């Protein structure tokens, strides 16, 4: 029972991390684009989705959309809503990472003849990622915690399951205490992993110019 909940939480988290990362990359490059339209659209996206409570976004997708004939199941809705909302946070973190990449390094890539796309893909993004990894990690940890909100749209992930177990067993203290511990351990492990990864990626980065 608990294991089922964990699997749901884990798969929603993993899918949304991938989804929000992809959205984040695209929107971040939009936000630093030279084209005013792209810039405005991307910055608008970031501003918009960071300024609406997540639970309201989820309710809109899950309870609002069916009204106009769009039905999506809870799992898909949750994954989509998380990707879209967290994508805005990821984009903002990546944007600042991209803006901090040494312009001299970018110019070196430019004069070597690399195409704009290759410069983004091979130079700017990897450097920005190294810088942004830690804040991006916090964003993704928050994402994992936010999956608990999906219990409100009938998705039986960890928290939803715990609710059921608590009411079946009449032992809310033990059940929720265990749940609390579990989230703690999970996010702690995640942050450890991110730190290790960050250190590994950045071991040679200092003083490189």
């Amino acid at each position, binding site marked *: 029972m608990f294991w089922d909940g964990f699997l749901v939480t884990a798969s929603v988290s993993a899918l949304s991390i991938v989804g929000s990362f992809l959205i984040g990359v695209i929107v971040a490059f939009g936000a630093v684009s030279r084209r005013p339209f792209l810039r405005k659209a991307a910055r608008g996206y970031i501003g918009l989705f960071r300024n609406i409570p997540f639970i309201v976004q989820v309710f809109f997708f899950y309870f609002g959309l069916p009204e106009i004939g769009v039905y999506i199941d809870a799992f898909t809705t949750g994954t989509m809503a998380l990707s879209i909302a967290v994508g805005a946070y990821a984009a903002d973190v990546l944007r600042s990472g991209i803006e901090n990449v*040494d312009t*001299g*390094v970018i*110019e*070196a*890539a*430019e*004069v*070597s*003849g*690399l195409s704009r796309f*290759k410069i983004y893909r*091979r*130079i700017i993004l*990897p*450097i920005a990622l*190294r810088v942004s990894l830690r804040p991006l990690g916090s964003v993704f940890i928050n994402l994992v915690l936010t999956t608990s909100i999906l219990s409100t749209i009938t998705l039986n992930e960890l928290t939803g399951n715990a609710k059921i177990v608590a009411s079946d067993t009449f032992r809310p203290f033990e059940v929720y205490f265990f749940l609390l511990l579990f989230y703690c351990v999970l996010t702690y492990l995640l942050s450890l992993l991110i730190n290790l990864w960050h250190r590994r*990626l950045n071991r*040679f*980065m*200092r*003083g*490189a*110019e």
Partner: protein
Amino acid sequence: MIEIDNLHKKFGDTEVLKGVSLSIAPGEVVSILGASGSGKSTLMRCMNGLAGLNGGSLLIDGLDVSKPRELREIRKRCATVFQHFNLYPHLSVLDNITLAPMDVLGRKKAEVEAEAYALLKQVGLADRADAYPGQLSGGQKQRIGICRALAMQPRYLLLDEVTSALDPEMTGEVLDVLAALARSGTTMIFVTHEIAFAREISSRIVFLDDGVVRADMPTDRFFAEDGGYGDERIARFLAKMRNK
């Protein structure tokens, strides 16, 4: 052949290059001297397309830098070494060197790597291929910067104050590499404050003064009393550099 004709460049309202004309033939080693702020870097940035032109023309092998398609071709022939190295910090020395030759020139990995190792050997860094820029000293980084430029097998090599960011004891190791290059027949356009070195390696000196070419003559004449040295502003510049 680099042909610069009546080149103008403005930043906002201030004109930095005020009608520069200059031509450089293949095989020449030309040093560009001038006080700081005279527009040397800007001229170099116009040549590799990092700065756009506001007037005049700049052709390299007949290709126009202000046309994006032709600029792409120019960048295959014209490599730049930077004052602050600008190595890719996340890539190993070897990858720094091989990235553009493989990607831009579409050459084979094995071939490019073999060449990269040969270049590293030439600059005395054969054992650092797997190092990252952050692990190298300034002098080593700049030698890698030179290798990265040379790996493109450029016809023209642009060098803008490539030793200015180095400690004095590391300047020599980089200048040695450049001297060998100059002898090898690579076309070099060399902005520098190392006057003695410029005198030693270049066939021609261009003196920029406040956005115009004040002197453009063979090295011997530039340093002669009745040549460039006879010009009062040039004499003052040289005296100032010597006293540094």
